[in-house]
């Protein structure tokens, strides 16, 4: 049984004009120690999906339906009190902008010790020892000094290292990282991503990485999900999807990567832009931007079709697979 199983999760925002559907029924699972990538343009609902795991969606968002099974218990239905026991202890999070994540008026030490004391009966002194040890693991320069410093006294990279250290404090089962390196400058991004990867492997911690950077996903994750307008349109082993993307949107994303285009030529662009939550087209949400779109695509929401180890939600792909099956049956 997978460590974390999300079954047709539905998240809505109760805005005055009526409910906006941010997540429209997505399902996926995460095994122990597995590294899952969540990819898609900004506004696809990646972050909302990530935050909904621990039910941290800010008002007026709420989980409208579906289940989030973690070690057999449905987090979506859990009371705030019970959920609190899991947050930070069993499932930890890393936010995007390290400048804003740490409380500016509390020392790094306080913010680490309190995480420990919230879940363990431990004296402050011991908590500080563990914190110090974690800081060493994230290779932060002169860790002893850091505990008593304030966040504004550290650089962006150092702060993200502290946040990673906090995430690992209680040996969580899963770390959900929402674009952990986007806010950092390029040189530090690779370093921090490598550090995160190495620590996850070392502690056999499952990693759910949310990013819009296909490059990062292809190197780091074992499986990946591609999200578009609140739905998962393609999910499966990263290698398979990267090498042989089925869904036209995923192909578009891959072709848009600089490495893929010949040097000196214009980069490939997917026409149009992501629809906003209150104007999502009927049928397959990608149809206005898809060159293969036909009337069928415009009316009916495509179901998932298994192609190899990849599930794809696209009528064209479903039709191709159907045709191939028929060919195989016809040939003896």
């Amino acid at each position, binding site marked *: 049984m997978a460590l974390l199983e999300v079954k047709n999760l539905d998240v809505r925002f109760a*805005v*005055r004009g009526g409910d906006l559907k941010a997540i429209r029924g997505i399902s996926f699972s995460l095994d122990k120690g597995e590294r899952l990538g969540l990819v898609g343009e900004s506004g696809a609902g990646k972050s909302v999906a990530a935050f909904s795991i621990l039910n941290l969606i*800010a*008002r007026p968002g709420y989980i409208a339906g579906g289940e989030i099974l973690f070690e057999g218990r449905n987090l979506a239905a859990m009371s705030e009190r019970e959920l609190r026991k899991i947050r930070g202890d069993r499932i930890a999070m890393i936010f995007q902008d390290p*400048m804003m994540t740490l409380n500016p008026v509390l020392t790094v030490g306080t913010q680490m010790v309190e995480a420990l004391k919230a879940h363990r009966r431990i004296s402050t002194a011991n908590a500080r020892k563990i914190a110090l040890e974690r800081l060493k693991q994230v290779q932060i320069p002169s860790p002893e000094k850091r505990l008593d410093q304030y966040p*504004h006294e550290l650089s962006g990279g150092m702060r993200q290292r502290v946040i990673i250290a906090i995430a690992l404090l209680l040996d969580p089962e899963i770390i959900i990282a929402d674009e952990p390196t986007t806010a950092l400058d390029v040189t530090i991004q690779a370093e921090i991503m490598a550090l995160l990867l190495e620590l996850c492997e070392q502690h056999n911690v499952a990693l759910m990485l949310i990013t819009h950077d296909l490059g990062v996903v292809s190197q780091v994750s074992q499986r990946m999900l591609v999200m578009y307008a609140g739905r998962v349109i393609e999910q499966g082993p990263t290698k398979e999807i990267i090498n042989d993307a089925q869904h036209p949107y995923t192909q578009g994303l891959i072709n848009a990567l600089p490495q893929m285009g010949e040097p000196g030529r214009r980069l490939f662009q997917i026409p149009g832009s992501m629809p906003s939550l209150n104007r999502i087209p009927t049928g397959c949400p990608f149809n206005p931007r898809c060159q293969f779109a036909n009337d069928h695509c415009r009316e009916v929401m495509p179901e998932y079709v298994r192609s190899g180890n990849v599930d794809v939600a696209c009528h064209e792909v479903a039709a191709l697979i159907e045709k191939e099956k028929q060919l195989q049956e016809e040939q003896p």
Partner: protein
Amino acid sequence: MSTATLSRWSRFRESFLWYSFKRDKIAIVSFVVFVLIVAAGVFAPLLAPADPYDLTQINIMNSELPPMWLDGGDPQFPLGTDAQGRDLLSTILYGTRVSLLIGFGAVLLQSLLGILFGLLAGYLGGRVDALLMRVADVQLSFSTLMVAIIVGAVFKASFGNLMFGEIAIYMLILIIGVAEWPQIARTVRASVLAEKKKEYVDAAKVMGFRTNRIMFRHILPNTLSPIFVIGTVQIANAIISEAALSFLGLGMPETQPSLGSLIKSGFDYIQSGSWWITLIPGLVLVVLVLVINLLGDWLRDVMNPRLYKG
């Protein structure tokens, strides 16, 4: 309509301000009530059954009459009369006009001075900050009472005091405005100190913006929240402190009472039976301040970039 105004009107209709105003019932109700009170003040001469400032109409014999619906009330005076026999309704209408002018005028002046000095002190720091903050200390120790005496004395020396009646309102706006700016200044300064450290200020500097553009266009919007809260509170204070000043002979002349002086003069009667002299104008003030506060809260939420929208 020329395209310019069309676009501005349509831009307003499309703007978030109008969008959130339409949906916020409280904002609508308070705006309507606010406009009603201002209108009542402005059109007082038309609405008021009698002219309270015309002494010939006042007859001492019908002083302290209760409101019409109570026994002993006189239909000619719907809300009863004050200690002088002035019709309370008309006096409230005229008084509201004066108090509104003074309330808003003074707070506007306070905010302008407060924001200007607060930004300068906070942003520039060093000697400017020390100088401005000590001027604030001197100003704080000279409360409205003392500033009134100083301005009154200076005015008397230059103009002689009989011309005072006509320009009392502008004098009061000046006095209350000048007396209370340090409160807003210190708050703005505190917010500026906190904001100054943030990246967007450095970014603006890097883009070569001049200092006052950074201060007013970038830092100021981030300090709106406390300013609105203090601003709305100061309006109520201004209206009440005007009454205290007329006691000193520096406020509105006795024969032209404002809302504040009506309330204050009613204090003596509150326990001896004529409670309406204080309570009815007091009620008008409470409604006025309530409405201003609600509008202030709504405006602050709408205009504040950091608060969650919609």
